[in-house]
């Protein structure tokens, strides 16, 4: 059992938990994720390791409520336990001193971007960060990201914080004024796709972090397969980071819809409604 020692509501849909998992806290590096199960009937859900406190044996996770399992996770309180937590999984980000790096995060993807920012700063890169969200309330971790960034740009769809606009608008601005050596984009798939296009135009290599639907997370089911450079890759062991230019985005978004009907049934029942006849 893995105890939640601290829990915070970041806003109406995003939550943060610190979980006791000493071994994972020792090992996890930027870019890696864990898979957790809430209880006996639960799904295996992947979440990025946002931070670790190795001496206390804690891992920090941030998640957005999107379906039944994340809704149930949000209900857990300090002192409750998860039945399973495994990791760290996936390949770590290749942290090097690249020179000047650009980091672009959108929505809950900012949580997954944060450890990469921190690690790139620690080895001496000049870090330029762009964060985007729907509105001020949903823009998370801005202060923490600022701590490790040389420049920070905030974008909101409605202009309630920073500039009104998309992260790609800010990317164009940065590319125009600065030579970027390598970039990262983590967020919803349309955002990663358009960030990839923007970086391509500027001739900058960009890494994206793919989050397909997973089961085991150890390369044994093939459910997380993505098409990269026209080849089948398993995001859980070959990724989750890939160079954005090689990703087949249509395939990727399509596979995210795989269980939409089923997830809706689960969510409806969870909220006390009746399944639409199908279950």
């Amino acid at each position, binding site marked *: 059992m893995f105890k939640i020692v601290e829990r915070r509501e970041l806003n109406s849909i995003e939550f943060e938990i610190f979980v006791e998992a000493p*071994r*994972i806290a020792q*090992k996890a590096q930027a870019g890696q994720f864990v898979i957790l*199960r809430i209880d006996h*009937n*639960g*799904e*295996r859900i992947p979440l990025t390791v946002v931070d670790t406190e190795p001496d206390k044996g804690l891992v920090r996770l941030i998640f957005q409520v999107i379906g*039944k*399992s994340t809704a149930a996770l949000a209900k857990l309180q300090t002192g409750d336990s998860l*039945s*399973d*937590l*495994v*990791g*760290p*999984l996936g390949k770590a980000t290749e942290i090097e001193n690249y020179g000047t790096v650009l980091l672009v995060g959108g929505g809950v993807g900012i949580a997954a971007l944060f450890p990469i920012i921190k690690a790139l700063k620690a080895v001496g890169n000049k870090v330029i960060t762009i964060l985007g969200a729907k509105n001020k309330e949903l823009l998370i971790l801005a202060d923490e990201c600022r701590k490790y960034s040389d420049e920070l740009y905030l974008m909101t769809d409605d202009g309630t914080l920073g500039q009104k606009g998309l992260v790609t608008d800010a990317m164009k601005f940065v590319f125009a004024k600065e030579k970027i050596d390598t970039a990262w984009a983590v967020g919803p798939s349309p955002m990663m796709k358009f960030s990839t296009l923007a970086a391509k135009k500027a001739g900058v290599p960009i890494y994206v972090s793919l989050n397909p639907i997973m*089961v*085991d997370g*150890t*390369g*044994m*089911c*093939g*459910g997380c*397969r*993505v*098409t990269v450079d026209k080849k*089948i890759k398993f995001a859980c*062991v070959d990724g989750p980071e890939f160079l954005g230019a090689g990703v*087949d985005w249509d*395939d990727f978004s*399509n*596979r995210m*819809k*795989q*269980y939409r009907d*089923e*997830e809706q*049934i*689960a969510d409806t*029942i969870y909220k006390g409604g009746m*399944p639409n006849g199908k*279950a």
Partner: protein
Amino acid sequence: MAKRSYTKTPMRELAPEIRNRSFSEVALGYSLEEGQLEASRCLQCKNAPCIQNCPVMIDIPGFIKHIEVGDLKSAHEVLSKYTNLPAICGRVCPQEKQCEMTCRLGRSKKFEPVAIGNLERLVADWACQQPIEMISNSKDKGKVAIIGSGPSGLTAAGDLAKLGYDVTIFEALHVPGGVLTYGIPEFRLPKKIVEKEIEIITAQGVTIETNVVVGKTITMEEIQAEFAACYLSVGAGAPNFMNLPGTSLNGVYSSSEYLTRINLMKAYDFPNYDTPVLTSKNVVVIGGGNVAMDAARSAKRLGAKNVAVIYRRSKEELPARKEEYEHSVEEGINYHWQTNPVEYINDGTGKLKAIKCVKIKLGEADESGRRRPIVIPNSEFIITADTAIEAIGQGANRVLLDTFPDLRLNRWGYIEANRETGETNIPGIFAGGDIVTGAATVILAMGAGKVAATQIDSYIQNQKVHV
């Protein structure tokens, strides 16, 4: 004694039209009387050939003799000397190709062999009903790590615990058992049974730590520093894909994902369990082994109207166990022989609609002795399908191997280990089961585990003499 019957005492089964709608076990087991009747058919041969052909060399006439007089306890004591997982072996071993194939009774005209597997199951099921006995083996001979809790790792662990070692199994998934848990479906191998046999092993003092991916959660260096020896039994879990156009369409599965969702995550009981699997009208399974049968029969049970298996050779060459094939036909699974898929067709929304296939003729035999499949020109045809499941074999599970570059692999990517001893190129590291042989059988994986236990014991004892 009454005259021996020519045929095996039949085992009762759920009727096909009931079982193809339920995940309950198909075969129902023998009553004691049925078992005694079957046991009385055994000739109690001297130099029994059945023993020679069993990968773990169970004293088969020995345990059968006790069944004949109704003494299941003594029968179980005999079995336990050789196998830690009898209820599992009794259900999934290919007995018809092993012990039962060489049975002397079966060799005489008109007689079927003794139903050794069914008898093993009878004894093991009896044992599973008994309270579990905690055994306090001494743990003072040293610490051994086992990586992977499939049949190979469990067997090695049980034997090493009996020899007095302090054994820890590390398992990546949240439940132990390997393929027994995540691959083989409930209707052939109830998970209750697997859990019970695993409990019997842990009651001997074996510790199982789930949720530990060796190579990630802890490294091989840490294992080597903490343990006197280590047995790698990580299985052959990585699915192969045929790489056809359309593989990324929704509805196209590897058998591993399909079966893992159903068995490990209990998707057949969605939404009581949270993990879904697509329920479909028309399911096509590609392949011809036991895995393909399992996927096809699971799909039927999930409510598919039509389930078809496409296999590129002919029925005579089907690699699956005959019993599984026959069960599948009774349950309404159809077969397209000498057929290969060439493309998955999109319904326009990213979902699978149909599979384009070609017909195959069989040419000359190749080195493997099997006739080579040749595509017949202009033989394309379409099979309607909303789910396709590729069951075309597995490769080495790389999650540990990628982090342990010193370990020597063979040209197929499996661990190079001495088959007689389980030794790898690294002293103190042994390996066995599917990760050495490629996908094989439960009993061969268990055999490798037994060998490794003996060898690890002598390795550690020798080291102690030298230091």
